[in-house]
C-alpha cells in the first residue's frame, strides 16, 4: 500500500509498524497491572494476574473480544474489548497460575514461599474469584516459589515443586499427597508438566530433564547429566500440547537458554538432542525470569520464544540449519516495544506469551508495562 506524503506526516510510528508487519488482526490492551501469566480457561477466556510484592494483586478472568472466538470470519465486530468476567484478590504476587481442565479450579503460586493457593472461578451469584484453600509445602521458607502443573486424572491434582527433590503431586480437594519424587538432586526446577496423567516431566534451571512415572513412586526421578552444550546458562522448557499429530513427530521437548540457545529433544532419547539453533537476540538475558518457549498447537514445528526483550519471535524448526547456528525468525512481534515508546519509558520486557488453541497464527503476549496484545500475523508472501 502506498502511503502518500501527507499520510506519513500524520500517521504515528505505531501505524507504520502495523502496516509494515502485516497483521491480520491486532488488539492492544492495557491492563492496570502487568501480568506474567496467561492461562486459557476453555477457548474463550484467559486468566491473568498481578505480581507486585507490596500490595494486593488482582486475578482476572478475561473474556476475549467476540471476533476472536467466533469460527466464521466476521467483519468489524463492535466488540473489540476484553470483558472482565471475574476477578479476585491475592495477597501475594502471582508468579504461576494454572487451571485444572474442565473444572472451575485455579492454582497459583508465588513468593514468599512454595505453598500453593487454590481458587474457585465459577459461582452462581457473584463474579468474585474466591480463595478456597492453601496447600502448604513444608516449613522451609528458603525454598523458592513452586512451579506448578495441573491435571484432571481421576480428581483434580497439582504437580508442584521448587527443587527436584521436593517435586510432588497433591490432590487438590483433599490436600492428600499422592506422589513424591524419590530424588536426591536439589537443583532448582524451572518448569513442570504432566505429559499424561501418569507421566511427569521436570526441567531444571541448569538444563536437565527429569522424567518420572507416577505409578512407580519409589523409582528415582530419571535424571540425566547435563550435556556440556547446555551448561552455564539458565533453561526453561516448552512441551508440545496434546502431542497429537503423526507418529513421525515423536513427543518433542523444546528447551530455551538465557543465552538464546534452542534445543529440541525426543523423550525416547533424552541425552541426544534432535536439533539445535540459536535465536536471533542481540544480548543474552540477565535472568531467566521471563523466558518462555512454547510449541504452536496448529502450525507444525513452530515455536514461540519470548523473554529477552520486548519482542516475541516465531521460529519454524523445520527450517533450522544443520550446523545449529543462528536462525532467522519466521515472524517477530515488536508491538510491545512500540507501546513502550508511546509511554516515553524504558522498553518493556515481554513476560509471557500463549498460543490461541485453534487459530493457527494467533498469540497473546504480555509485557512488564501492563500491555496485553492479541495478534494474528499474516503469512509472508515469500516462499520459505
Amino acid at each position: 500500500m502506498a502511503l502518500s506524503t501527507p499520510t506519513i506526516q500524520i500517521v504515528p510510528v505505531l501505524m507504520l509498524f502495523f502496516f509494515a508487519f502485516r497483521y491480520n488482526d491486532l488488539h492492544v490492551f492495557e491492563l492496570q497491572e502487568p501480568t506474567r501469566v496467561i492461562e486459557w480457561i476453555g477457548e474463550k477466556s484467559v486468566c491473568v494476574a498481578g505480581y507486585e510484592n507490596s500490595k494486593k494483586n488482582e486475578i482476572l478472568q478475561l473474556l476475549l473480544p467476540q471476533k476472536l472466538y467466533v469460527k466464521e470470519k466476521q467483519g468489524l465486530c463492535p466488540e473489540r474489548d476484553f470483558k472482565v468476567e471475574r476477578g479476585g484478590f491475592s495477597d501475594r504476587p502471582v508468579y504461576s497460575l494454572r487451571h485444572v481442565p474442565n473444572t472451575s479450579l485455579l492454582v497459583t503460586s508465588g513468593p514468599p514461599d512454595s505453598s500453593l493457593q487454590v481458587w474457585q472461578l465459577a459461582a452462581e451469584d457473584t463474579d468474585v474469584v474466591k480463595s478456597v484453600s492453601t496447600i502448604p509445602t513444608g516449613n522451609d521458607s528458603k525454598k523458592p516459589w513452586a512451579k506448578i502443573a495441573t491435571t484432571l486424572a481421576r480428581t483434580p491434582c497439582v504437580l508442584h515443586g521448587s527443587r527436584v527433590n521436593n517435586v510432588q503431586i497433591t490432590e487438590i480437594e483433599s490436600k492428600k499427597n499422592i506422589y513424591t519424587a524419590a530424588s536426591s538432586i536439589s537443583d532448582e526446577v524451572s518448569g513442570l508438566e504432566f505429559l499424561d496423567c501418569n507421566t511427569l516431566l521436570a526441567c531444571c534451571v541448569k538444563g536437565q530433564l527429569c522424567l518420572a512415572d507416577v505409578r512407580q513412586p519409589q523409582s528415582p526421578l530419571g535424571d540425566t547429566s547435563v550435556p556440556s552444550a547446555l551448561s552455564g546458562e539458565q533453561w526453561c522448557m516448552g512441551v508440545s500440547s496434546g502431542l497429537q499429530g503423526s507418529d513421525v513427530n515423536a513427543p518433542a521437548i523444546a528447551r530455551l537458554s538465557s543465552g538464546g540457545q534452542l534445543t529440541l529433544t525426543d523423550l525416547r532419547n533424552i541425552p541426544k538432542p534432535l536439533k539445535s539453533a540459536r535465536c536471533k537476540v542481540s544480548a543474552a538475558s540477565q535472568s531467566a525470569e521471563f523466558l518462555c518457549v512454547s510449541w504452536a498447537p496448529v502450525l507444525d514445528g513452530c515455536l514461540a520464544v519470548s523473554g529477552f526483550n520486548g519482542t516475541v519471535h516465531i521460529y519454524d524448526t523445520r527450517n533450522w540449519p544443520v550446523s545449529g547456528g543462528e536462525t532467522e525468525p519466521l515472524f517477530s512481534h515488536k508491538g510491545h516495544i512500540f507501546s513502550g515508546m508511546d509511554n516515553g519509558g524504558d522498553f518493556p520486557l515481554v513476560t509471557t506469551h500463549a498460543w490461541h488453541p485453534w487459530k493457527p497464527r494467533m498469540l497473546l503476549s504480555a509485557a512488564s508495562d501492563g500491555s496485553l496484545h492479541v495478534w494474528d500475523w499474516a503469512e509472508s508472501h515469500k516462499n520459505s
Partner: protein
Amino acid sequence: MPEIKVTPLGAGQDVGRSCILVSIAGKNVMLDCGMHMGYNDDRRFPDFSYITQNGRLTDFLDCVIISHFHLDHCGALPYFSEMVGYDGPIYMTHPTKAICPILLEDYRKITVDKKGETNFFTSQMIKDCMKKVVAVHLHQTIQVDDELEIKAYYAGHVLGAAMFQIKVGSESVVYTGDYNMTPDRHLGAAWIDKCRPDLLISESTYATTIRDSKRCRERDFLKKVHESVERGGKVLIPVFALGRVVFATPGMLHAGQSLQIFRKWAGNEKNMVIMPGYCVQGTVGHKILSGQRKLEMEGRQILEVKMQVEYMSFSAHADAKGIMQLIRQAEPRSVLLVHGEAKKMEFLKQKIEQEFHVNCYMPANGETTTLFTSPNIPVDISLGLLKRESAIGNTPVNNDFPLSGTAILSFRLVSPEQALKELGLGEHQLRFTCRVHIQDPRKEHEMVLRVYNHLKGVLKDYSVQHLPDGSIMVESILIQATAQSEDQGTKVLLVSWTYQDEELGSYLTSLLKKGLPQTTA
C-alpha cells in the same frame, strides 16, 4: 442527620435509559431523562409516577440536568416536560442545547412517520421543551436558587457532554453521565478537580471492559476501507449530519442522501456500508445489521443487499480503569454505580472499596439508596502538632488522619448589625409585660399620678416621665394603668420593657409590688 437519596428510575434491571432522581438537603434534582431505545411502548419512558403520584412535578423538582445529547439520556425530555408536565429549569451545556432538538426531531420523525406511532411528542412539544432550557458553560457555577448550585465539568465522550456537580451548602453530589478518560482524536479526556463530593454517581455499563486501543480500531477500519477500494468497490459510511440541516439526518439509512446512495450501491458485493453507531428499530440500518438482506422499499420494491455490511463503534465509554481514575481525581466520600447488575459487579465494588476506602452502592432501578452525610468543619492544624504526630509515625492515610489535639475556637467581635447581616438574620425585639396589682381605691388617673410621684422620688438617676396619654415612661419602660380589675379597690398596672432593659424592668416591678407609700402628696 443530613441525608442524600438516590433513585435510578425505570423498570427492571435493563440498561438503556438514564434517569436518576437525587434528593440532597431537601432539594430534588432529576439527572438525565432518557428513552429506552429497545421498547416501542411506554416502557421506553422512565416511570415518573415514582416522583409524585398526584402533585405537580414542577413543585417537587428543583431542576432537571441533561448530561449530553444521546437519546438514552435526553430522549424522554419532551414527553416529560410537555406531556407529563414540568415547567422548571432544564440545565445543559450549550452544544447539548444546540444538538438535542435536532436529534429529538429526527427520532420523532422515525417513530411517528415511519413507524406510525401516535402517543408520542410533537415537533411543537420539542420546541416548547427547549424553551425551558438554560444553557451553561463549563466550570461556571449556576445558582439554581438560594441554596442549590450546579457546575458542569468536561466529560469527553461526545461534543457537549458534561459531568455535573450539584451542591447544597456543604453537601454535594457529582453525576458523571457518560464520560471517557482516554482522549480521542477530536475530544479530550474527562476531567474534574478534587472536589471531594459526598457522593459520585457513575454509569457502570462498560465498567467491566478493558478497551482495545484506539489505534487498533482505526487500523482495522482503515484496512477494511482500503481492501474494499482496492478490489474496485465503494464504501458508504452514513453519519449524523448536524449543523446545516434538514431535519432528516440519514445516520440510520432511513432517509435522505445516504439512503439514495445505499440503494444504488446495495446490489454490488464489492461495495461496503459501515454503520457507525446504534440504529433505531425500524430503520434500514437496523434491518441490515440484523442480517436482513432483502428489504422492502417504497412502492413495494424489493432491494437485494449484496454489499458487505459492517458495524463499527468508536463511541468512547469509561472502562474499569477509567472509573478508578475518575474516583482518584474527584475523591468522593462514597460511590454509586447505576446500570450494572449487582451480581456481576461484586468484584468492581470490592476493588473500589479496597482501593479508596469508600462505600460503593449499586441500587437496582427503582431502588432508593440513602446516604448519611456528616458536615465538614475545616480546621487549621499547627505545624508543631503535625510534626509531633509524624515523629510517632502517625500520618494521613487515604484522607483519614485520627489525632488528638486541643481545638481553639477563635472569636471575632462585631457590631450586632454586622452579625445579623452576616448570619442573614433579622433583628427581633423581645418585650416583657408584667401585671402589678396595686391596692388603691382612688380613681385610675389619681393612682397613676401617685405612682409617678413615687417613682420620681425613688429613681432620681433615671428619667421618669408622665406622658400625655396617661402612661409613665421610666427610661424605655412603659407603665400603664389598665381598666381590667375585679374590684374597685385594686388597680392593675401593666409594666412593659424590652429585653435590653431586663434589669431595670425587674427592679421596677418588684418596687411597685411593694406598694405605694401611704402618705399622699
